[in-house]
C-alpha cells in the first residue's frame, strides 16, 4: 500500500511542478511562495511574526490556501483530461489512489509552510536584530506544526470530496473557493451580529482560557474532522461511480 501511495504522490508532484511550464518554472513558483510567506510577510510584521500567538493564524491559513490550489485538480483534473479511467483500470487500490492524492497536496503545502516559517524566523532576526536570537516559543512551534498539518489535511479532505464530484477543475475551484469563504467569513460575520454582551463574554472566555488547553482542544477537534472527511472521501470513492460520472 505505501509504495502505491508514494507512486501517486510522485506523479502528483511531477504534475504540480510541471504545470503549463517547465520544471524550472514550477520550482520558481514554489520559491516565490516561500519568499512571500518567509520573507515579505515577516518583514512587514517584524518581531511580532515570531513572538505573537497571532502567527498561528498564518500557520493555519497558508496550508489551506496552498492545498486548495492543488486538490481541486486531483480527480476533476484527471476526469477533464481523460486520464482517470486509465488510472482506475490499473492495479492500484482505491485507498492508495485517494490517499496518494490527498497526501501529495498535504505534504506539498505543509512543506512549503514549514519552510516559510523557518525562513520567517531567520528574516526577522536578520532584519530586526536586537542583540539576541528571537525564536518561536516551544508551544508556538508545537502548535504551529500541528495546526498547519491538520488544516492542510482539512483542506485536502474537503477538496478531494469536491473534486470527486466536480466535472471540471474550474467547477471544483469555484466550489472550494466558496467553501473557504464560508469557513473564514461566517464566524467573523456571526461575531459581528451577536449582542455586545455576548461578544464581551466570549472575549473574556478566550482571554481566561488556558492557551495550551485551547490549542490542544482545537487540534483534537481538527483531527476528528479530518478523520471524518477521509472516511467520507473513502466512502465516496467508487470506481464505477467515478467512471459513469
Amino acid at each position, binding site marked *: 500500500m505505501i509504495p502505491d501511495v508514494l507512486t501517486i504522490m510522485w506523479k502528483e508532484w511531477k504534475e504540480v511542478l510541471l504545470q503549463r511550464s517547465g520544471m524550472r518554472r514550477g520550482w520558481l513558483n514554489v520559491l516565490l511562495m516561500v519568499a512571500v510567506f518567509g520573507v515579505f510577510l515577516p518583514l512587514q510584521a517584524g518581531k511580532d511574526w515570531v513572538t505573537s500567538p497571532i502567527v498561528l493564524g498564518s500557520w493555519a491559513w497558508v496550508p489551506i490556501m496552498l492545498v486548495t490550489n492543488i486538490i481541486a485538480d486531483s480527480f476533476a483534473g484527471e476526469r477533464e483530461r481523460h486520464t482517470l479511467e486509465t488510472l482506475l*483500470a490499473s492495479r492500484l487500490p482505491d485507498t492508495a489512489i485517494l490517499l496518494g492524492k490527498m497526501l501529495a497536496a498535504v505534504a506539498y503545502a505543509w512543506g512549503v509552510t514549514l519552510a516559510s516559517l523557518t525562513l520567517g524566523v531567520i528574516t526577522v532576526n536578520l532584519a530586526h536584530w536586537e542583540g539576541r536570537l528571537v525564536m518561536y516559543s516551544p508551544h508556538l512551534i508545537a502548535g504551529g506544526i500541528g495546526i498547519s498539518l491538520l488544516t492542510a489535511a482539512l483542506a485536502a479532505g474537503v477538496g478531494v470530496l469536491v473534486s470527486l464530484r466536480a466535472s471540471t477543475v474550474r467547477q471544483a475551484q469555484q466550489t472550494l473557493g466558496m467553501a473557504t469563504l464560508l469557513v473564514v467569513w461566517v464566524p467573523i460575520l456571526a461575531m459581528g451580529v451577536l449582542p455586545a454582551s455576548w461578544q464581551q463574554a466570549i472575549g473574556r472566555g478566550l482571554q481566561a482560557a488556558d492557551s495550551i488547553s485551547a490549542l490542544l482542544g482545537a487540534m483534537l477537534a481538527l483531527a476528528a474532522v479530518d478523520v471524518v472527511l477521509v472516511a467520507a472521501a473513502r466512502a465516496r470513492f467508487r470506481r*464505477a461511480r467515478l467512471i459513469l460520472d
Partner: protein
Amino acid sequence: MSDLVIRTEELSRHFGSVRAVDSLSLEVPAGIVFGFLGPNGAGKTTTIRLLLGLLEPTGGRACVLGFDTRRESDRIREQCGALLEHSGLYERLSAEDNLEFYGRVWRMPPAERRKRTQELLAHLGLWERRHELVGTWSRGMKQKLALARALLHRPRLIFLDEPTAGLDPVGAVAVREDLARLTAREGVTVFLTTHNLAEAEKLCQQVGVIREGRLLAVGSPDELRTRTGAPRAQIVGRGFDERVLELLRARPEVTDVRLHDGQLSLELRGDGDTAPLVSLLVSVGAQVEEVRKGKASLEEVFLTLMEEER
C-alpha cells in the same frame, strides 16, 4: 477450458431501460487477437469496463484470466493492460515520465522499468523523443505511447478500445502495424474493439459482432464469411445480353445475377464452382475475358448481420 482468457455467461449491464450489454455469452481463447465489432453505441466499451471489473454487471457473470469480475476485479486489473477510449496519457509529463509512472504502478524494479521503456519506445520509434511533453505530440504518437504503456508490465491480456479511432489513414496504418508486430512478439492475448472492419480483418484471428448489446455472431473472419456471405464471381467479357442473364438465373448454383458496365456479378451457392457457368456462356456465343472469384468482405458480412438483425 483452462486456455480461455475470457468467459462470459449471460453477462448484462443495463442503464435504466437501456440494455448496454444484453445476455452476452462469449469465450476468448488465449494467445489470439479477438476483435469485438459493432457500430457506435453497440456496447463495446461497456463490455470492456465490465471485463475489467470497473462496472458491476446487472446480471450474468464473467471470468477473466480465471478471476470473477465481481469478486476478484483487483486480480484482473493486476494482470491486464488497457488502452481505453482515451489514451489516458498525462500530457504535462514527458513520454518517459508517463511510462515511469505506470512502471511504478505495476511495481516494476527500476532497472527493469528503464530497460523495458527503452525497448518499447525504441521499437515504436519514439525513443529519441522521450523527454518531450506528451501534450506536444500528434494523436498517432500518443496512441503508440499508450500502446507501449499498456504492454509495459508484460500483461497476459490487453484491452484496446478502438485504438485507431480518430487517426488519419497514415497514422492508423502505423499504429495497426506496430500493434500487430508488438502483440505477436509479446505473445499477449488482445481484446480489441473496433468499428473499422478492415482493421479487424487484418489483425484478428476471431471476431464477435455486437449490436445494441447483443452478440450477433462470433468466429474467425473466414467462418463468418462462410456463414453469412455467399461465394461470388465477376465475369468480364462481351455478349452478355438479357438472354444470357436469363440462362444464368435458371442455373441452380446461381442465386443472383447483375450486369453492370458490361461486367457480370454473380452470387453463388455451394462451393462457388464457376467452370460450368463459363462453359454455358461460351456455348451461347458470349466471350469470356476474365473470371474473378471471391468471398464476401467482412464489411459485407457485418452489414448483412446488421440488416438481418433489423
